[in-house]
């Protein structure tokens, strides 16, 4: 039994390994699973950062800027940071009533829980702080994050204000134009007539020296529509550079993005711009604000302000990155050889991998994990099958050995059982010989003798067949088993032994039992074992009490329950739980395998076996077999 138990134990381990693998694959399939949610400090030692945007939420620049500020602050703070964001949407709602509403809203919302730092993200002007509720934000350090050609007002240079004033990168944009268009002859700068517009144009004029031999033309004092029309007639080897148009010839404000959108369909030459929005909307390229760099710098400033490492600082300059539009470059036939290294390429038709990196990688991970799981399960199944086959083989062998030893116990009484008919045959033939020597043999008597001989031969043959079937080494089979026949045959096998021991066997089978499927020989072994145990239990009993009863009845769930009851001493209560354990025995010469094997056999049939003490005397062993009613 020990190798059997060991084999079961061996089979258990790979199951655990496989289940661990399944868990792994779940985590791989959902990479976000298990990551802690954003920590809300709730007034602890975390920081509250309020980001106020002067423009709407959806502006592409704002989105990436907010992301980079958040990321940089969270990384640098070293403690939980809670973010609040508000958008004034000043371009679309530019009346005083809206400003008042916004101010009152912020005042009511943040009264009593001032942020640790207020960051103003505003691409257009510095007016926003004045539109915030002073009573709430009076003592809150202020950090500007802004790209503007405007000069910051002196008021901002006071204590308590820090800022990042990001200038449009005219220089690198012009250099990019030359790099992409080596034959460049002419640059048309479209600007406006406001002071701010004018300041930018002046910078471009200065920078034009970077492109020697290139003619510069400045369209600053005409309605945008006119500029649009003229753009359609520009000669080859020219370029358009869009400046700020806070006020065109007609007094209109036109954002760079819109300008690029309107010019691109008609322009005969490539358009350059200095905002990322424009480059996604028809402009070929330019040096644009790098939200990553700006975010990091702004975060550094904010931290310094919160930690009171400084009182205020305005940083002016450019933090730009080269960007160009892949589709527009194709349109103008600009070879990628000329593309600046490290440039951000917009509108590149992305590969499936780029578009669905997460999905693909997690998909691949899932498939991989599944494949591994399947492989592990297959390997495990092979091992388990081998172990199971081993167990089955060992069980069959063990069952066979115990059957043989059971038959050994029965051998002498079975020999008697065989000698009986053989003796009768011998006497009958001797008698027949003597009858035949008579002058007038009695043929009727001879006929009767022959009939008796045949009957006795069959009787002896039956005993041998029963023994041989028990001795047969075979695997567990599943065939219909007739319970009546099974019980009768088993009782017949045990009968001579019972007789020799002066024990009465009583058999009681309920009518109409359900059909059972299983292995007749193995079941017979179980029964025989229980019968012999019952008989052994009667060793010290007086004659009248020497009874072993066998009964079969239908169970509630349509199976069959077979009980073997003896009238012996019963089982000691503390041993009752151990009788089915291997090597457990109460007999001086017992091996302790019979009941263990019986249990294995019954369970292999899907049944259960149990032992109990009778209320009066002796013990009952019961086993159930599931019914097979079709």
């Amino acid at each position: 039994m020990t190798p059997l138990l060991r084999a079961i134990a061996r089979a258990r381990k790979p199951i655990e390994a496989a289940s661990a693998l399944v868990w792994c694959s779940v985590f791989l399939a959902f990479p976000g699973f298990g990551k802690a949610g954003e920590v809300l400090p709730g007034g602890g030692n975390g920081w509250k950062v309020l980001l106020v945007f002067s423009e709407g939420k959806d502006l592409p620049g704002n989105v990436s800027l907010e992301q980079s500020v958040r990321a940089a602050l969270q990384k640098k703070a070293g403690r939980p940071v809670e973010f609040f964001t508000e958008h004034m949407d000043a371009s679309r709602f530019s009346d005083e009533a809206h400003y008042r509403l916004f101010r009152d809203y912020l005042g009511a919302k943040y009264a009593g829980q001032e942020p640790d730092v207020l960051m103003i993200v505003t691409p257009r002007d510095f007016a926003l702080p004045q539109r915030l509720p002073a009573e709430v934000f009076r003592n809150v350090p202020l950090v500007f994050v802004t790209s503007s050609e405007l000069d910051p007002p002196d008021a901002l240079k006071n204590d308590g204000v820090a800022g990042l004033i990001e200038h449009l990168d005219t220089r690198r944009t012009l250099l990019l134009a030359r790099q992409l268009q080596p034959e460049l002859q002419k640059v048309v700068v479209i600007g406006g007539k406001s002071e701010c517009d004018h300041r930018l144009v002046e910078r471009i004029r200065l920078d034009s020296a970077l492109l020697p031999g290139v003619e510069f033309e400045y369209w600053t004092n005409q309605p945008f529509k006119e500029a649009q029309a003229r753009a359609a007639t520009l000669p080859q080897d020219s370029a358009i550079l869009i400046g700020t148009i806070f006020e065109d010839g007609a007094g209109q404000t036109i954002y760079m993005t819109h300008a690029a959108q309107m010019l691109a369909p008609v322009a005969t030459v490539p358009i350059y711009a200095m905002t990322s929005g424009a480059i996604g909307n028809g402009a070929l390229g330019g040096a644009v604000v790098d939200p990553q760099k700006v975010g990091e710098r702004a975060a550094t400033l904010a931290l310094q302000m919160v930690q009171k490492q400084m009182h205020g600082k305005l940083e002016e300059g450019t933090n730009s990155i080269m960007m160009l539009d892949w589709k527009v470059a194709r349109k103008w036939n600009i070879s990628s050889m000329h593309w600046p290294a490290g440039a951000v390429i917009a509108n590149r038709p992305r590969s499936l991998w780029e578009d669905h990196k997460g999905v693909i990688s997690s998909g691949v991970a899932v498939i991989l994990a599944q494949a591994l799981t399947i492989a592990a399960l297959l390997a495990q199944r092979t091992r388990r099958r081998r172990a199971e086959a081993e167990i089955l083989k060992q069980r069959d062998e063990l069952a066979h050995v115990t059957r043989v030893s059971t038959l050994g116990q029965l051998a002498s009484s079975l020999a008697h059982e065989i000698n009986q008919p053989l003796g009768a045959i011998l006497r009958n033939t001797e008698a027949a010989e003597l009858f035949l020597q008579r002058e007038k043999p009695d043929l009727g008597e001879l006929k009767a003798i022959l009939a008796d001989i045949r009957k006795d031969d069959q009787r002896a043959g039956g005993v041998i067949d029963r023994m041989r079937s028990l001795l047969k080494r075979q695997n567990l089979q599943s065939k219909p088993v007739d319970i009546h026949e099974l019980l009768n045959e088993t009782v017949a096998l045990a009968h001579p032994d019972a007789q020799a021991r002066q024990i009465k066997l009583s058999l009681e089978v309920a009518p109409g039992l359900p059909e059972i499927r299983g292995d007749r020989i193995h079941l017979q072994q179980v029964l025989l074992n229980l019968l012999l145990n019952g008989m052994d239990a009667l060793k010290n009993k007086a004659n009248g009490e020497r009874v072993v009863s066998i009964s079969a009845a239908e169970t509630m769930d349509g199976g069959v329950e077979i009980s073997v009851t003896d009238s012996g001493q019963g089982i000691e209560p503390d041993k009752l739980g151990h009788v089915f354990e291997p090597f457990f025995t109460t007999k001086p010469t017992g091996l302790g395998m019979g009941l263990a094997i019986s249990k294995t056999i019954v369970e292999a049939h899907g049944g259960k076996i149990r032992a109990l003490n009778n209320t009066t005397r002796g013990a009952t062993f019961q086993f159930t077999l599931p019914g097979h009613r079709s």
Partner: protein
Amino acid sequence: MNTLVPNRAVFIVDDDDSFSRALARLLQASGHETRTFGSAQEFLRELNPEMRGCLLLDLHMPGLNGLELQENMVGAGIVMPIVFLTGHGDIPSTVQAMRRGAEDFLTKRASREELLAAVERALAREVEERQKRERIDELRRRFATLSEREMEVLGHVVRGRLNKQIAADLGINERTVKLHRTSITRKLQMPSVAELTRCAKEAGLFEEEGAL
């Protein structure tokens, strides 16, 4: 064949009908009367001292087994030689059976010669036993005619005591002893002391005195 035969039958007691029937056939074909019984109890119900013959007895039977039947018969003082038959003989049962005076112990598949010889022997022995029993009964009847004093004197005579010694032991006259002895010889019609002694022993007299 099962009609009661008063003299010399072979009684077969075996729970195996088929074997009993075959055995009965063989014995009948060999010239014996037979009677078969399915169990020891059945045989005991019929048993009486008038039944003559021998018993072929199966050792293993449900209910009362062969040895127990033998015990019963010995206890009841019934003289009937028993030949035990068994499918397989085991030594303890054999020894026990033989000690109690079993005639023979055979397996059921013993040869016909063995079986018939055993039956003949048993039957012969039965006659012998019967005759012996009858002779003892006769002797006892004769000894019973002696008076108490004569029995006393006889007891001393068979132990080889002289008349003088007997007279001293019993506190009587030597002549009176002689008169008793003459009376004994006349009643028993046994002229010599030697014959007297032999018959007394045969009849089982004076055994308790440890002298014979």
